[in-house]
């Protein structure tokens, strides 16, 4: 089974492993450098960081040197305080997992802007960040005294790795997952790591920080002899990087080194691709001597996975009886397949039960499934169990069906140069051919209707069954109409200028699915609060939405329907003898996502989407429409927007607004155009309808 992995929280050094059978020599004494490295004049004189104006501090130099033979990582960091806000950087914290590693040889000094350097001689504290039974995440911490703006801070220490293997980290991940502290992703299952892996990740150099870094050096050395190398099975070092504009590590037999300079500060933004794919980093890993190259790795791993899937599914003939019972009297192929799909969706989806970790399943005596027969007999399964059961039943019913393994893109994007099958290809879908058409199906996602797959498994890299694996391809993405939010709004303009009425919101495709998943396990009151918040976010400030009904949130119906009563106070305003009314009453800030002129990262929407508002406003007696906004329409390859306001009766306005985002990925060079698109939409939405008041009719202000 695939183990849930996360790289959150722990620096790369904690993941260091000694995979080679090289006995570690006795611990090296803490490095006793005769002195600190000299400070460059330019660094002494630096007052501001031109690459990050106003930055609280700048990293002048950092170094991480890992020596596998001594199981140590030496860390050095030189930082300059540039503003008062940077003084906090003189509070040093060094986290580690007690028992798995230890921190030794901590040294630090402060070099003031004027006067001699002062070595740190104060107390170093050790605090417990988290302790559960024998597992303890500890933090060495100390505060450097007498630090001022302009001070340079040097710190260095050694991380001594006491135990090999990543069990401590995995244990910690499991604990945190159980506590709900880690990102909650449904467990996939379906891939067993080999006892003798073909590639092993040994660490990640996190190159980019939240401060500008002038220069950094990372090194990994394993001082083994050629004989040791040959005896080890020919493991060799390899690397894969993220976001590095230039500079590849120098790789030797068992060593790697990277020197980089002028690394910009990382700045997270809304609507960007997963952060791990943007923050500069280098992954190091060993590849087994029998694996010639990356292509070979993917070929072998895909073949293993494929075999495992086939073994789990077994012979179709054994399921024919079961399948006949499921499809019943259906004769049309698509109907037959849909019945199988519905049947499998009726299984208990263990992956979506909150808190049901591997340990919890063991405790509750919920056995792991080893075959489709197990799944059908027990009536439950992890995600991969459910998908494979569906494919096996489909095959038994005579369909050409297969399981595909995809890189779910909600937390990463696939990197072919990073050799880890389970970390990257971490989810499964079904691919079934019916009448010459391939259907991508996601039976393991609760409430996912036939014909749809959760967005995280669309438009992403996948591998499918093949006689010559790996057979990579990109899963399709669904068009905007498969993520449609349609609002039917009926409002009365009240004499006081307020609008009051009802909204029926119909979500289909992805929009329905994500809300159904968000509301898994929630109760009526929680749903009411969540939907009312969602509605009020797109209404002007001060508005109120009261949920009146939710339909089909707990099943795979084509649409999820949510109904509200809404009140928008004071939207119609008086201007002399006229009344003004924005053409779209749905003017909340939630509709316009981009505020800033500058952007660093490309824009990444989870899926293409469409919002269609159909609004009818009934005017009170004595008001007549004098001016309506002209129809507007903007369209390009990335998006489209239209708005039309018609007078369908003397006292009735009919407004139709249609906004479509057709592309998921919008390169940063296109950001200005994308922002302009939403700015224009807002501007048109805010367009005013001018109403004339009959003599004697008065707009009553709320305060009167």
């Amino acid at each position, binding site marked *: 089974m695939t183990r849930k992995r996360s790289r959150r929280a722990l620096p790369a050094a904690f993941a260091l492993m000694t995979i080679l059978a090289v006995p570690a020599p006795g611990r090296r004494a803490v490095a006793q450098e005769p002195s600190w490295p000299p400070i460059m004049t330019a660094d002494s004189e630096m007052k501001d960081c031109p690459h*990050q*104006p106003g*930055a*609280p501090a700048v990293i002048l130099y950092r170094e991480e040197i890992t020596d596998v033979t001594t199981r140590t990582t030496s860390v050095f960091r030189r930082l300059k305080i540039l*503003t*008062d806000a940077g*003084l*906090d950087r*003189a509070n040093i914290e060094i986290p580690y997992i007690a028992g798995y590693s230890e921190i030794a040889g901590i040294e630090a000094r402060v070099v003031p802007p004027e006067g001699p350097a002062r070595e740190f001689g*104060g107390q170093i*504290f050790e*605090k*417990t*960040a*988290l*302790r*559960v039974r024998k597992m303890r995440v500890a933090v060495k*911490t100390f*505060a450097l*005294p*007498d*630090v001022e703006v302009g001070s340079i801070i040097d710190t260095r220490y050694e991380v001594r790795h006491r135990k090999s293997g990543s069990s401590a980290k995995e244990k910690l991940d499991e*604990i945190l997952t159980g506590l709900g502290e880690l990102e909650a992703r449904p467990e996939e299952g379906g891939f067993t790591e080999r006892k003798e892996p073909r590639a092993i990740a040994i660490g990640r150099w996190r190159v980019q920080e939240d401060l500008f870094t002038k220069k950094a050096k990372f090194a990994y050395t394993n001082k083994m002899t050629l004989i040791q190398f040959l005896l080890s099975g020919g493991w060799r070092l390899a690397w894969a990087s993220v976001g590095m504009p230039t500079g590849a590590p120098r790789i030797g037999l068992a060593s790697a080194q990277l020197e980089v300079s002028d690394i910009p500060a990382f700045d997270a933004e809304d609507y960007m691709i997963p952060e791990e794919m943007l923050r500069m980093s280098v992954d190091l890993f060993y590849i087994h001597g029998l694996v010639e190259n990356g292509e070979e790795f993917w070929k072998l791993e895909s073949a293993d996975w494929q075999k495992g899937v086939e073994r789990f599914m077994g012979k179709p003939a054994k399921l024919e009886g079961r399948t006949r019972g499921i499809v019943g009297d259906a004769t049309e192929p698509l109907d037959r397949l849909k019945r199988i799909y519905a049947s499998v969706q009726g299984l208990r989806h263990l992956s979506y039960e909150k*808190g049901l970790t591997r*340990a*919890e399943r063991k405790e*509750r005596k919920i056995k792991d499934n080893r075959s489709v027969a197990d799944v059908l007999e027990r009536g439950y399964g992890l995600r991969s169990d459910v998908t494979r059961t569906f494919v096996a039943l489909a095959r038994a019913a005579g369909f050409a069906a297969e399981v595909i393994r995809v890189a779910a893109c909600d937390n990463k994007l696939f990197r072919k140069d990073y050799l880890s099958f389970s970390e990257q290809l971490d989810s499964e879908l079904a691919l079934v051919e019916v009448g010459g058409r391939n259907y991508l199906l996601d039976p393991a996602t609760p409430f996912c209707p036939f014909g749809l797959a959760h967005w995280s498994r669309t438009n992403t890299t996948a591998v499918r069954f093949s006689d010559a694996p790996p057979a990579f391809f990109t899963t399709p993405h669904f068009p905007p109409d498969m993520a449609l939010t349609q609002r039917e709004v009926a409002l009365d303009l009240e004499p006081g200028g307020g609008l009051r009425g009802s909204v029926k919101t119909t979500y289909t495709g992805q929009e329905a699915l994500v809300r159904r998943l968000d509301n898994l*396990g*929630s*109760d009526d*009151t*929680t749903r009411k609060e969540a939907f009312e918040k969602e509605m009020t976010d797109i209404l002007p*400030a*001060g508005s*109120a939405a*009261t949920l009146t009904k939710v339909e089909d949130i707990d099943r795979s119906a084509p649409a999820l329907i949510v109904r509200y009563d809404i009140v928008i106070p004071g*939207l119609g*305003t*008086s*201007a*002399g*003898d*006229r009344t*003004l009314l924005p053409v779209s009453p749905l003017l909340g*800030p939630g509709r*316009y996502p981009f*505020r*800033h*002129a500058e952007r660093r990262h490309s824009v990444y929407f989870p899926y293409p989407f469409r919002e269609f508002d159909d609004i009818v406003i009934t005017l009170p007696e004595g008001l007549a429409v*004098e*001016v*309506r*906004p002209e129809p507007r329409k903007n369209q390009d390859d990335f998006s489209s927007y239209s708005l039309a306001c018609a007078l369908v009766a003397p006292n009735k306005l009919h407004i139709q607004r249609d906004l479509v985002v057709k592309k998921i990925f919008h390169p940063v060079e296109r950001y200005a155009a994308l922002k302009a698109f939403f700015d224009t939409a807002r*501007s048109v939405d*805010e*367009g005013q309808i*001018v109403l004339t008041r009959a003599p004697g009719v008065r707009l009553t*202000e*709320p*305060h009167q």
Partner: protein
Amino acid sequence: MPAAAAVKPPSWLADEAARPVPSLPPETEAVILLDEQSTVVNTKGVMTTICRRAARVLRPGGVEMLGRLALAVTYDSKVKSMRGWAINPSGSTREATMDQALSSSIAPGTLYMDAKIMVLTVPEVEVGSVVGFEWKEEQKPEAIEDNCAFQGPFPVLRAHYSISLPPGWEPHLRWINWPPPEPGPSASEAGTLSVDMADIPAIADEPLRPKEHALAGRLLVHIKPPSPHIRSFSAWPDMGAWYADLSGPRRVPDEAVSQMARKLITDSPDSLSKIRALAEFAQKEIRYVSIRIGIGGFQPHFAASVLANRYGDCKDKSTLLAALLQAVGIDSHFIIIHTDRGGVNLRSPVSLGSFNHLILAIRLPDDVPDAGLDSLVRHPSLGQLLVFDPTMPTTPLGRLPYYLQDNTGLLVAGNSGELLVLPRPGLEGNGIDRRGRLVLAGDGSLAGEITETRRGAEADFLRYHISAATEAGRRKYLETFLARFLGSFSLQSFEFKNLEDDRRDLVVSYRFVAAGYAKRAGGYLVVRPRILGSRAVDLDSKGKAPRRYPIDLETTLFARDEFTIEMPAGWTPDSLPEPIDLDSGFAAYASRTEESGRTLVYRREYRLTEPLLPADRHDEALKFFRAVGADEQQSLLLKTTETRTPQ
């Protein structure tokens, strides 16, 4: 985490699980069935408390909040045992024991502390579960008292409190935010005093209500031991004396402190400038670092050590400042206070746990004029006290941060103490003036510059955030602000003046172009003369029960806007919005749009004089702010001075 084994829960929990739950509002996450606390005090003043809590989870949120028990282990308190059980709707049961608890000594804003939090989680709790915890704590506090916090975010069906004292020890019950029961409880022959309560409502969420600790009912038990060797407080002077004793030696200046004080005031010609020089040093040159070991949560480090390290927490900063002042012959007194207002008022009984912050009251020499010092308190015996918080980096001497305005703290004076209400600045003390000159083009675009002059809390708050921001962060702040009011705009330039000089007004100016600000509507241009800024406050209770708690608008405020908009050539107002003039007693609001030649001039004033309103004024405040909101939406029509052809 490994799950606990299924076991039989204790009978008290099974009994609670069998009790019917009355009808409760649908938003109720959970209900406390039983909240029981029994304290036994021995002759040495050691308090052993056994607690039981049983709760029924009614909604998913209740799982998170009541499926866990969190207890603190500090230098004066130990957790002797903790166990938890769940009885699930299916009838299955679970247990968690103390060895499964996780612990952490991480605390926000604290570099190091030797205290830890222990958290015990019962696995597999779900909606419908009854969760029970039983735990035992032992403590020997600095001053003996007991607390029973019976009211919180969940309704409580039954609460029971008892305390057993050795012979000769006297308990005194103090009810906070709760009416004392009639008749009051009396001690049994065995010396045990018991209190039973039932149907305690939850503290509900309401917009802009005071913090929970200012509203929640609790029972404070003062204990008077016969022996003077066991400390207890019967009144605030007792606590003042204790703190004076605890902190006194720490604030004595040594030679290094005295030398620094003399150096800092070298160029200060008068008493106030001397005080200011010393205050600014403690405020700006001592970085905030909290290291709490043992009694370090109460006791400051020595002033000399704070000076040498150039770091410390609120106690340390105040202590160093006190020592620096003393070194130049100026007296000062600590004020112990809470950063959330409302928990303590002049009628509150003394309690060690009332506060979380330390500031300083500086005794002003007679030669200091008091003009312009908003934080000045005239004390009947101590004279003029200038209250100062050296921990808030952007509030200068003479002003109070908003969280201290109108707050009540314990003034530690001599070998005593007394409650002191801190001043609330006058209307002019917290203010913002916005003035803009803008040009409207015929295509509807608006261009120009707006300058904001901020005083008091309005300046401090922004200064605090902007000072720490990069240039890009400052731009983003302004863009986020402008985006609330303008659809499409380009921020062309901006400037923050006096950002580092908190004694002067903070002046923020920004130049922008807003395309399509005025909307074409047939032959009209629709213009909203209130270009930006909002004074409307959403107090709508969203259909829930009548308002129960006061409305806390934080500070007084005097805000003025004046926007001059040059109209495009050939356009003139069709009509002007009617002026508005509102006065609700606690606040006043007036706005007016006038035509002056080719310009429109929009002016408004907002005066908030009573920032804390009782609940019964909710409807009045709601109506007031709705009217303000409606006024802010007012637009006017410009028409061409030539032939008008509306469509």
